[in-house]
């Protein structure tokens, strides 16, 4: 049993606040620790309990990088329990960047923030209606005197929430967080895919999918009910994306090709032949070879909907045979069980995305747009870094070769020089098709790892 008191959890863990269509991501630098602690204490951070109790019009969330906690006077490197990935930072180790695919054009040296200039210290997330958000921002900034902390950058999110700039409905599949701690992970039932995920995968101090409470900074309650927030600013070449799909498949076929690359219809519905009940009532168990939804498609990489065993549940003896690897093939058992690698996604688009149909027709307005990718997880290594490194960026996902995520791949050649810019799928006649030469559609332009504390932990961090 593991439950979290909702009044100790920041509200973003529980919801994305899609109805509040204005968002500002304020990146701060601490100039004076005591003064910064004082004025940050004055900001009202929204709790999950408040969000449950009433319909909020203003939401403020607060998170810190490791550099930020150090700047506030907290000896994070000496406090046991902080994740080493967090302490290193997203851009702090070339080996990490290599593993995550943050190289060449996506390398930290090219970022607008979070790269060579160093980590920002504090992240404030402000959410309100679009018409009110700038007023809210101004009020909030007015409470932060420059002697205490300075604004590094304010990133703006824009609507519509839930549709990313390429035009696709986004954020459809989210894990069902087991807030009440009723789930008992482990055992034969987990051979099948499930959406409900142990609380400890998203909040520190709770039982995770392995059935244990992983280490976290326990001293003085700093870590309890906190989580790690990954923020990556992804610039999207929307014009390039649609120009390329039209070039490959013609005006009439561009949408169908794009939908196969994503793995969903543009309106968020699953590909029809998967026979889904609702938007998320499907797995890929009926489509092991990717005849309907390509193995390398974006949604299949981001969440392969795999259980502990691709052969499913087969009774005691059948399960034993599966576990010993005496039945089944390597090719159909190439993807790890999804329940250990889920993320709560809380990202929002930015910029004004052009109209998709106009783009397909060849009209080319150019305003920069992209996604403020934000996700929450309790284990940076096992969740975000695994998904990004082994599933999204890897040209070897699912036993494939020569393909990265068709949307997010950096297209850098594999070791040995083999290209990674292909995408394989089956067309409506069941004929296997292969396209190559995918350009890079998405470029990472900034990012950092943050710690999003529980409210008790926050009070401890900001106390004098």
């Amino acid at each position: 049993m593991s439950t979290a008191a909702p009044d100790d959890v920041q509200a973003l863990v529980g919801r994305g606040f899609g109805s509040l269509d204005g968002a500002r991501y304020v990146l701060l630098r601490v100039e004076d620790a005591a003064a910064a602690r004082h004025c940050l204490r004055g900001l009202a951070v929204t709790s999950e309990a408040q969000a449950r109790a009433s319909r909020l019009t203003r939401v403020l969330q607060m998170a810190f990088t490791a550099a930020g906690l150090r700047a506030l006077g907290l000896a994070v490197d000496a406090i046991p329990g902080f994740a080493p990935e967090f302490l290193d930072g997203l851009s702090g180790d070339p080996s990490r960047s290599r593993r995550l695919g943050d190289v060449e054009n996506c390398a930290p040296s090219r970022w607008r923030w979070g790269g060579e200039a160093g980590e920002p210290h504090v992240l404030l997330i402000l959410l309100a209606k679009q018409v009110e958000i700038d007023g809210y921002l101004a009020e909030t900034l007015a409470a932060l005197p420059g002697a205490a902390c300075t604004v590094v950058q304010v990133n703006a999110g824009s609507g519509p929430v839930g549709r990313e700039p390429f035009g696709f409905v986004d954020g459809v599949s989210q894990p069902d967080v087991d807030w009440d701690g009723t789930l008992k992970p482990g055992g034969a039932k987990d051979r099948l895919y499930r959406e409900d995920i142990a609380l400890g995968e998203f909040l520190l101090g709770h039982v995770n999918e392995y059935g244990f409470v992983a280490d976290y900074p326990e001293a003085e309650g700093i870590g309890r009910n906190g989580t790690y927030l990954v923020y990556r600013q992804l610039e999207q070449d929307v014009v390039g994306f649609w120009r390329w799909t039209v070039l490959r498949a013609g005006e009439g076929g561009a949408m169908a090709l794009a939908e196969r690359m994503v793995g969903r219809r543009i309106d968020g519905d699953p590909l029809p032949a998967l026979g889904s009940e609702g938007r998320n009532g499907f797995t890929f168990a009926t489509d092991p070879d990717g005849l309907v939804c390509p193995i390398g498609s974006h949604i299949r990489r981001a969440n392969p909907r795999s259980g502990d065993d691709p052969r499913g549940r087969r009774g005691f003896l059948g399960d034993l045979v599966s576990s010993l690897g005496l039945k089944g093939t390597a090719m159909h058992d190439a993807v790890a069980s999804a329940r250990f690698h889920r993320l709560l996604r809380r990202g929002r688009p930015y910029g004004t995305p052009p109209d998709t149909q106009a783009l397909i027709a060849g009209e080319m307005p150019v305003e920069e747009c992209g996604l403020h990718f934000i996700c929450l997880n309790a284990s940076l290594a096992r969740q975000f870094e695994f998904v990004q490194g082994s599933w999204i960026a890897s040209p070897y996902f699912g036993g494939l070769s020569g393909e990265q995520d068709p949307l997010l791949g950096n297209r850098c050649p594999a070791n040995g020089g083999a290209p990674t810019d292909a995408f394989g799928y089956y067309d409506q006649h069941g004929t296997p098709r292969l396209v190559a030469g995918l350009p890079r559609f998405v470029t990472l332009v900034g990012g950092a790892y943050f710690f999003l504390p529980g409210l008790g932990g926050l009070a401890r961090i900001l106390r004098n």
Partner: protein
Amino acid sequence: MAAPIRFGCRADLESLLATMTREPGQADPENALVPFGRLNRIHVARFVILDDPSLPDRLLLAESLPVHEPVRLAFIADFDGDEADFFDALAALAEAGLRRIFSFCIDFTPDADLVEWMRDHNLPTAANYINWRGRSTRQIGEEAALHRALRPARLLHDGLAPEALQRILLNIGGTVPLTPLRRSGLAEKLLDIGHFLLLPAIGLLLFPFVIVGAIPFVLVLRHRERTDPVLAPVPDRARNRMLSAQEDHDITNQYSAIGSLKPGRFRRWLTVVILWVINWGARHIYRKGRLARVNTIHFASWTFLDERRRVYFASNYDGSREAYNDDFINKVAFGLNLSFSNGLGYPRTDWLILGGARREQDFKRYLFHHQIPTQVWYKAFPGLSNYDMARNARIRAGIDHPPRGKALRRWLAEI
């Protein structure tokens, strides 16, 4: 093979080995000392200094074990063909370089016969796993070349009817040289069958003893499982950086780990039996692409050191370290527990196969605690995963026996 190195010259040896690499730990195939790339029977090879960072654990957990053990330099290669031939070929290729490297070993003298010295220091493995028995470097290389030849044609003719595309691909396939696959001879087969029968035969012979011994065995095991100390310290960040710097340059990574067995005969002999059974299973059951459900290991070996007080584990696997660990925990925790739970400090197991690796955090920390850097690691086929090699073999099979209908579509999709 492995030999103790001279006292106080470890840094110089590391510097010398570093001249063989292009990036941390990644061998330059054309390096001046041992140009692995020219010995085309090698799949993977490594030079690793077996310096055990977990030896001080003995002071804490196992006072009966000696405080010191020799630091060895090991050379490990997975290669095709006969061992004697391999040593000869290796010496012919790189005698001067090998002499320079081995001169750091205690008993290597300038006038020593290199091949004889290497043979003398050859260590037998207790268990050995090969992803695909009988697949030679020649086969892998030729099939990869076949794939490289077919893929542009598939791209160029994308959208063509499957049968028409197949005709084009078969024509191209016909121009790529493919050496007929080697079949094992009668003597080899008989030897294999004989070895296969060993396990059932020994099992049958020892059956009465097993029956009699089962209850005391379980009692001792359960007692030890409840009382054996666990040691899984929080990873040191600097050391993790050093190890990470060697990793993820290729889809395949090397892994080296060393540690002491728990003291006493019970654990030692349990390990001997388990590794023997693992070796038997790897030879006769898990021959084609999978070790139980783990598909990512190219080669792995377990070797006893120091009169079976320690085990050195080496593997070559696809993916990143975190992914490798997760893959293991989720799919074969029982196998990990069998093969490693006799190690000093291993996370608590129940009934030999339960618990243990399932204690994810402790298990990952235990592994990290025992992982050591590999100074030079060579892989003959950069960029190729186990899946790629198996796929290329299927593509080749489709050239030899052209498929039709659904099988044809599947075949085309793999190119």
